[in-house]
């Protein structure tokens, strides 16, 4: 039996690799309907309470990710409003120092780790498989697992704040303040373990995205035809893979210092507190680009569609994205200019921090050129992107001033920096994200959002944003440091702070309008066609919302803008099994068909594994024995996860010929 199988498999290895190109009649509508029914059965999305925990479908999981991330965004945004109320007038007693420190730490941590990175990756999880023309994301069970780990981590942080035991050491958790001597209790441990939660899920999603992008693109989508959004997700995922290990390692070391008495950061025993800063910012600076690079992809998508022309300078855009990814790793010390490092090093980091403005500049110039030569249609998504240009260029320029080490010594850790990074993160990432939601909402839900209300929302948010954050530049010049829960009246910071608080109210109102629009449109928006904006990327070739299998026939791509450049007969791939979850694997550079794999069915095991993993993470805040206790259940869930399905279904068989095409 073994011998027979071996000979057959060896024979196949040598014989079965031919891809046949041919011309055939268009399938009968009945055949297409039959294929649709079979694919729907094969790629079913389970429902019900247990079923919904078993889902491995990338669209469902991405939507959960996006909704969850926006819940954290709203929560952390409300925390920001609390901070603004506290700071509205001098010597305010609205929040005490203890609560204020918890609130600003949770605000930063939540925005960075539970909103910005996950929501961008979620956009990738939803859109990348559709844009590259495949049926699901690679490693779908890992995707399900990553979502639950993320959810449990986020719930943990939220609960700690509601229980008044949230971390209070800042989202950067500098030691020794966050170490065992100066923050007794468990507050800093919750922070460190939240990092572990989010990094595990972020890293898993990144591996999925890299594999999806490099190996499952539709035939014909060579690297130089990949949509810019997909390029931006590829760069982001690779940055996550290289940056996050640093913070996982360093936050684990912090946890060990606090839990079992290691001395990594204890200067009295040969440790070093600056070590933490190096490791944290080696991750922390790329983190900014991890948030911002996907937004660049959204901007390019929106500009292409709403000018009706491909983005100007595709090669320059791709090179700029890749360059940003590389240079982003060489700047971390500009967060440490005040620590007294050697002058020569500071000069290098000043220069490197200046240089990263060049790729950003190139992209801005290319977008302006695109707007110039295209015919802009001023719908809500484009408005948000234009708002992005206005805000991001400002934030980018203030970033250039921060790169200057002597200037930074004055404005470092002041409200000037607060203003700067809200310009680049809110303006640079959240504005495009909201524009992107308006743009892809019809694809995700099948309904259009209200464009008129969207425009009003844009103006409320745009004005509110500038009213909130522009005065902070001046507050920085006037010497107001960050992370203070109050300030004396004599320094004259009161009026500008009051203005900023009023702006925060406008931002909250804008957020409410956006939320209302989402809820209203989801229930009763105009029904969306497959391609309501006349976009050029593959996600617009399938119905809105897409069927569970994404593409009835996997497309063959003939140009950079797949829909704008495809020929009239719409060439497709046939010969992929529809009776199991088979997916075509193509090669990295040219997307030539190479082989096929079968994706796993829905399963409860990723959920169970996430439960055990989360219990282990939370348990290890309290005792090192969590590790030995968790090992056995963890192993069981992993074995369940990877155990082959029933022998019948997996029996080695020749790929069944596709029925509808003779």
């Amino acid at each position, binding site marked *: 039996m073994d011998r027979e199988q*071996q000979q057959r498999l060896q024979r196949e290895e040598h014989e079965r690799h031919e891809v046949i190109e041919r011309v055939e009649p268009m399938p009968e509508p009945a055949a297409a309907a039959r294929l649709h029914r079979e694919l729907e059965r094969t790629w079913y999305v389970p429902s019900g309470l247990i079923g919904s925990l078993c889902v491995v479908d990338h669209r469902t999981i991405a939507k959960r990710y996006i909704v969850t991330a926006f819940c954290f965004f709203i929560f952390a945004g409300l925390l920001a409003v609390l901070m603004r109320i506290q700071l509205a007038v001098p010597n305010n007693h609205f929040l005490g120092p203890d609560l204020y420190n918890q609130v600003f730490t949770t605000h930063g941590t939540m925005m960075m780790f539970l909103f910005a990175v996950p929501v961008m990756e979620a956009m990738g999880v939803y859109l990348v498989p559709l844009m590259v023309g495949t049926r699901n994301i690679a490693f779908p069970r890992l995707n399900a697992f990553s979502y639950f780990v993320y959810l449990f981590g986020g719930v943990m942080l939220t609960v700690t704040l509601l229980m008044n035991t949230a971390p209070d050491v800042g989202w950067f958790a500098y030691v020794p303040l966050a170490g065992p001597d100066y923050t007794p209790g468990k507050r800093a441990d919750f922070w460190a373990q939240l990092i572990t939660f989010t990094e595990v899920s972020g890293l898993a999603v990144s591996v999925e995205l890299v594999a999806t992008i490099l190996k499952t693109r539709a035939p014909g989508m060579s690297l130089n035809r990949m949509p810019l959004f997909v390029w931006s997700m590829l760069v982001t995922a690779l940055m996550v893979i290289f940056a996050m290990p640093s913070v996982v390692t360093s936050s684990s070391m912090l946890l060990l210092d606090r839990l079992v008495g290691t001395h990594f950061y204890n200067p009295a025993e040969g440790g070093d507190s600056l070590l933490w800063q190096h490791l944290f910012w080696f991750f922390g600076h790329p983190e900014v680009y991890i948030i911002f690079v996907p937004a660049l992809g959204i901007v390019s998508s929106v500009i292409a569609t709403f000018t009706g022309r491909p983005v100007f300078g595709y090669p320059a855009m791709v090179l700029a994205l890749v360059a940003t990814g590389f240079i982003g790793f060489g700047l971390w010390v500009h967060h440490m200019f005040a620590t007294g490092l050697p002058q020569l090093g500071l000069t290098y980091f000043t220069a490197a921090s200046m240089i990263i403005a060049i790729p950003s500049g190139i992209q801005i110039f290319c977008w302006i050129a695109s707007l110039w030569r295209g015919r802009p249609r001023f719908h809500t998504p484009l408005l948000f992107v234009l708002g992005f240009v206005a805000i991001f260029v400002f934030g980018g320029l203030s970033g250039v001033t921060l790169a200057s080490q002597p200037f930074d010594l004055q404005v470092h850790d002041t409200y000037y920096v607060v203003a700067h990074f809200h310009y680049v993160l809110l303006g640079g990432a959240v504005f495009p994200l909201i524009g992107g939601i308006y743009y892809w909402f019809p694809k995700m839900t099948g309904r259009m959002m209200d464009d008129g209300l969207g425009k009003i929302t844009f103006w409320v948010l745009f004005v509110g944003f500038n009213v909130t954050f522009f005065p902070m530049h001046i507050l920085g010049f006037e010497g107001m440091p960050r992370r203070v829960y109050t300030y004396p009246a004599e320094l004259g910071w009161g009026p500008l702070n009051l203005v900023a608080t009023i702006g925060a109210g406008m931002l909250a109102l804008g957020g409410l309008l956006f939320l209302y629009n989402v809820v209203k449109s989801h229930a009763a928006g105009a029904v969306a066609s497959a391609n309501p904006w006349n976009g050029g990327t593959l996600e617009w070739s399938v119905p809105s919302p897409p069927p569970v299998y994404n593409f009835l026939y996997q497309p063959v791509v003939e140009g950079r803008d797949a829909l704008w450049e495809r020929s009239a007969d719409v*060439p497709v791939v046939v010969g992929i099994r529809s009776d199991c979850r088979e997916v075509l694997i193509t090669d990295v550079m040219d997307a030539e068909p190479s*082989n096929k794999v079968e994706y796993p069915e829905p399963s409860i095991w990723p959920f169970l594994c996430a439960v055990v993993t989360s219990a282990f993470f939370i348990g290890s805040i309290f005792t090192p024995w969590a590790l030995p206790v968790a090992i056995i259940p963890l192993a069981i869930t992993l074995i369940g996860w990877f155990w082959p399905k029933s022998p019948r279904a997996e029996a080695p068989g020749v790929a069944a010929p596709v029925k509808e095409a003779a």
Partner: protein
Amino acid sequence: MNVPGQIERRRVLDVSALPDSAFGYNGLVWWGTVGFMVIEGSMFVIAIIVYFYLRLRVENWPPGLPNPDIGYGTANLLVVLLSVIPAAMSKSAAEAFDLPKARRWLFVLTLMGVGAVTLRAYEYTALNCRWDDNAYGSIVWLLISMHTIHVGTDVTDSAVLLVMAYTQPMARKRFVDLSENSLYWYFIVAWWIPIYLIIYWAPRWL
């Protein structure tokens, strides 16, 4: 755009003859394995950087502690290096779809892995430091434990694959899993060389 009724024929790319899995970088599994190898490798790199960073902070190394004893560590290095042979044999057998041979070598690999884990337990007794002695002790324990977790994980993985190979029908793609298991083992072996040198020899040389 495709207007129904006007176009009656279309070009298709028939991929039904393509294999339903592939070894190495042609296949999808390889990319997942390598993705996690890169992530875990980055963590090792960070830990090694921390080691040398902490080294620069003090005069003597190890600070106020004896050097680790090299006996068990070196023995483990030999075991781990030798285990490359069964790993390579099971990999090539898997890629030739030779199930009996792949199973045999996977069995040897698992046994050697268990041996490595056992030796590792003795290694902890020969470090001559505790994790809470000072920063040197902390980083030594971190490095060796990070590696131990990887060895333990892959030995478990091999054992599970072994059970699977004896009890389950082996579809084509299961041979890919066998092959990637050896790849991951190479990764663990490759990292043990620098970590061994750092743990046992760096205190003597630096």
